[in-house]
């Protein structure tokens, strides 16, 4: 890239040059659309001709062996990793490959990381405050004040994620599972159109799993949800449509029953007795 | 007894300049000790007040103020770099102090409150160039210096001087390097090819302090010997040589007003005293030390003459005071607050000393305002009444140059 292009790179810092944000256009079908995406790391093909479509309001489970490329796929959608080839569209208007992470996030794509990632030096409450869907530009953020309705909303979410008692504790001291919940809470605060949830129930008890399942199912319809999970019990409890990734591409897709009876899926993923 | 006379010592004891300045602090302490042993002056003892301005220029001003305002010293001996002097100058002028500045410098200054006991350019640079031109037959010149005001000014003066003497512009090469420059490969190689054009070439070095060791090393290693391309330095003295393996440098030159090897009894006594004071058999003396020696003795004489340490009285009394220097002659304080000095050219020897190869037939009076700079050609300084002016313009007959003449002058 020439120096000039570098400076002219539109979607970086110049405020007045950033594309005007417009609502997601889902009149013509899916909310998320990946076509022929390829990624390789030092020659290793992590994503291989991946095609995937998520409909508006859908709850989709994605399963697949370790290293199938599930997390990498999320990295691509959220702008963290740039694919070598392919296209990724959010609705029919937004080409995600031309945007950076904050832009994608403000379009309404929220994400929970596989390894829970929260702001450890801030309190639980502040973590949620920052996640809240508000004007995130500099000056408005500087002048932002804590309105009562915000507080209510945060308290609501604290209730949902069961961290009410820890609201003024630093997030850094939370246990693994508690961090998972906090991150889910941050996702809720964000009110995204599309939630990407990477292994939400890892480290949760059965009962918490149930709660998570309820939560995610209740979101579906209003919001679209993509869940990656290895816990088959959990997947079964929420699944409508399941996609199986293997070696960077779709191996099977269909209802839970269809998929779990697919011999290929059993061989590479579920194992004989699952 | 009466209160002691307080002598402020304002030399860096830490930081980059500590290398050069610490010995000057020790020198003044030694001189004070000796004076006290001889009964002090006016029946009063002397007391040193030492502070460390830590090679930090604003700190120099602050410490000067501390010495004058808090400690109420009667006189200050201090500074090495010109920038530290410039920083201190407004303070000593404001608080009407006395400062003895012992280092060769670029000139272009004469303050009512400062006594310049180091060399002005006409007491070092010009005679050295004359020597090279007349005695060595140098026709091509490399003016190499550290990029700060002393080398800049000195080289400006020398350039004008050389051109006046008929040296062509392409026979002068000017090169500036940053402080502490350590990689001289390219520059030495350039000097080498500049010097291989057939004409006798010499380097006039105003390279400062730490940069000299790697410079001379590189000269030696690239095989430039004193008989090919001699280097005459204005900032390399015995102190600097004590950090260099002088074997390969024999024959390179320095111009000063004093060398430790000078064959005079005053000098030998001074050296004995210095060695006794430091307890180091290898301790060396150098030119700025001599400058402090002279300055200190002048101050004592002036106090005796004035009969008081009152600053204005001492200022008055000191002009015309004459004391022995260490080279067997006398130094006199001139009305422009500079002193008379002999100019010596020395060659580096393998024992880290210089051997004097040439000296001016008589002493030279320091010139505050150079004759080779357009702005100052007409200026003189004279701190005797009634003139009492550091910037007297002989063309206009007024104290302080005025704008009109300046413009005419620079065209």
């Amino acid at each position, binding site marked *: 890239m020439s120096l000039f292009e570098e400076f002219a790179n539109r979607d970086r810092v110049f405020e007045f040059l950033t594309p005007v944000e417009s609502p997601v256009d889902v009149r013509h079908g899916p909310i998320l659309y990946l076509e022929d995406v390829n990624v390789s790391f030092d020659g290793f093909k992590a994503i291989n001709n991946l095609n995937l479509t998520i409909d508006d309001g859908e709850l989709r489970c994605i399963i697949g*062996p*370790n290293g199938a490329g*599930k*997390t990498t796929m999320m990295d691509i959608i959220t702008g963290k990793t740039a694919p070598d080839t392919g296209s990724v569209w959010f609705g029919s208007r937004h080409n995600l490959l031309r945007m950076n992470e904050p832009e994608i996030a403000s379009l309404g794509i929220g994400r929970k990381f596989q390894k829970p990632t929260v702001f450890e030096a801030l309190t639980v409450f502040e973590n949620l405050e920052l996640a809240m869907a508000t004007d995130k530009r500099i000056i408005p953020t500087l002048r932002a004040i804590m309105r009562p309705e915000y507080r209510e909303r945060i308290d609501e979410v604290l209730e949902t994620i069961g961290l009410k008692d820890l609201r003024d504790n630093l997030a850094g001291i939370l246990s*693994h*599972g508690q961090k998972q919940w906090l991150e889910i809470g941050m996702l809720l605060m964000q009110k995204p159109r599309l939630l990407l949830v990477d292994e939400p129930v890892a480290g949760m008890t059965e009962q918490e799993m149930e709660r998570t399942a309820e939560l995610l199912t209740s979101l579906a319809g209003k919001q679209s949800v993509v869940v990656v999970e290895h816990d088959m019990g959990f997947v079964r409890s929420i699944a409508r449509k399941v996609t199986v990734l293997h070696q960077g591409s779709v191996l099977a897709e269909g209802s839970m029953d269809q998929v779990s009876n697919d011999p290929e899926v059993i061989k590479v993923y579920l194992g004989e007795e699952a | 007894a009466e209160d002691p006379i307080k002598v402020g010592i304002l030399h860096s004891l830490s930081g980059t300049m500590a290398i050069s300045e610490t010995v000057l602090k020790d020198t003044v302490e030694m001189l004070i000790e000796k004076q006290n042993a001889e009964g002090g002056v006016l029946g009063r003892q002397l007391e040193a007040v030492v502070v460390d301005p830590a090679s930090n220029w604003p700190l120099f001003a602050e410490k000067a103020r501390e010495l004058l305002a808090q400690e109420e010293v009667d006189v200050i001996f201090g500074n090495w770099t010109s920038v530290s002097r410039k920083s201190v100058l407004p303070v000593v002028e404001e608080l009407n102090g006395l400062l003895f500045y012992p280092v060769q410098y670029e000139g272009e200054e004469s303050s009512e409150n400062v006594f310049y006991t180091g060399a002005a350019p006409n007491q070092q640079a010009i005679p050295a160039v004359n020597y090279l031109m007349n005695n060595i037959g140098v026709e091509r010149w490399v003016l190499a210096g550290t990029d700060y005001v002393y080398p800049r000014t000195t080289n400006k003066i020398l350039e004008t001087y050389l051109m006046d003497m008929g040296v062509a512009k392409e026979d002068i090469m000017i090169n500036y390097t940053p402080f502490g420059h350590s990689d001289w490969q390219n520059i030495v190689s350039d000097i080498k090819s500049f010097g291989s054009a057939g004409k006798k070439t010499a380097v006039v070095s105003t390279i400062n302090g730490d940069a000299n060791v790697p410079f001379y090393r590189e000269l030696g290693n690239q095989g430039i010997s004193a008989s090919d391309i001699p280097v005459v330095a204005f900032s390399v003295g015995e102190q600097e040589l004590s950090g260099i393996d002088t074997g390969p440098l024999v024959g390179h030159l320095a111009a000063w007003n004093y060398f430790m090897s000078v064959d005079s009894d005053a000098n030998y006594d001074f050296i004995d005293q210095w060695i006794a004071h430091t307890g180091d058999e290898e301790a060396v003396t150098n030119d700025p030390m001599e400058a402090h020696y002279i300055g200190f003795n002048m101050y004592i004489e002036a106090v005796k003459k004035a009969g008081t340490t009152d600053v204005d009285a001492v200022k008055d009394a000191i002009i015309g005071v004459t004391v022995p220097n260490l080279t067997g002659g006398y130094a006199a304080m001139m009305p422009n607050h500079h002193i008379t000095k002999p100019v010596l050219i020395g060659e580096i020897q393998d024992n880290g000393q210089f051997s004097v190869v040439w000296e001016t037939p008589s002493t030279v009076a320091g010139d505050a305002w150079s004759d080779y700079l357009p702005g100052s050609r007409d200026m003189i300084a004279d701190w005797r009444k009634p003139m009492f002016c550091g910037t007297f313009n002989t063309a206009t007959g007024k104290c302080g140059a005025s704008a009109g003449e300046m413009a005419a002058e620079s065209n």
Partner: protein
Amino acid sequence: MLKIDKLNQFYGESHTLWDLELDVPQGKCTCVMGRNGVGKTTLMKCVMGEETVKSGSIEFAGDVELTKKKVEDRSRLGIGYVPQGRQIFPLLTVEENLRVGLAVRKDGSKKIPERIYELFPVLKEMKNRRGGDLSGGQQQQLAIGRALVIEPRLLILDEPGEGIQPNIVTQIGEVIRRLIEEDGLTVLLVEQKLPFARKFADHFAIMDRGRRVAGGEIGELSDQLIKKHLTV
């Protein structure tokens, strides 16, 4: 094999483990269960020495008082540790990650036991890739493999199935059983997933708010206990 007695631990001011008692019988798999944040991981860290205990004792192999041992020496005694969150060395290659444990081995072998690669073939395949580049599940396998390199007598597994594909979870369970049965390994397992625990553990202990509140043979793990202690 491991006998924990009246263990108390604090994070700064907050009392996390309260007079905790736990018995891990030799050659068996003991599973510690409990809700999030009750202190399971903390307990494991105390055993490994990553957290200091305030009072109480941890007795290993009948005669060694662990609380008096340095962290480094605990692995030398034969304790392998698979921490929660994997904790692999991200910039070391897979092979180097495994080699780290070699120094502790009693036999002084300089070679990674072939067995590890048999258990987790993916590690062999990726042995020159840096640990941090692996997928989550691959890292978990690496962490287990790494703990096995030292051929431990006691293996501590903190939620080992987390993020691993089902067939490998099963496989890990089987490996654990095999090691218990063939080599007489003792296993201390932290696990939330009931089916897994039921299938592979011999004993269980339930923790709540830093205390041990129930325990016994795995068969005794009743729905009632579960309801009482494992649901919110």
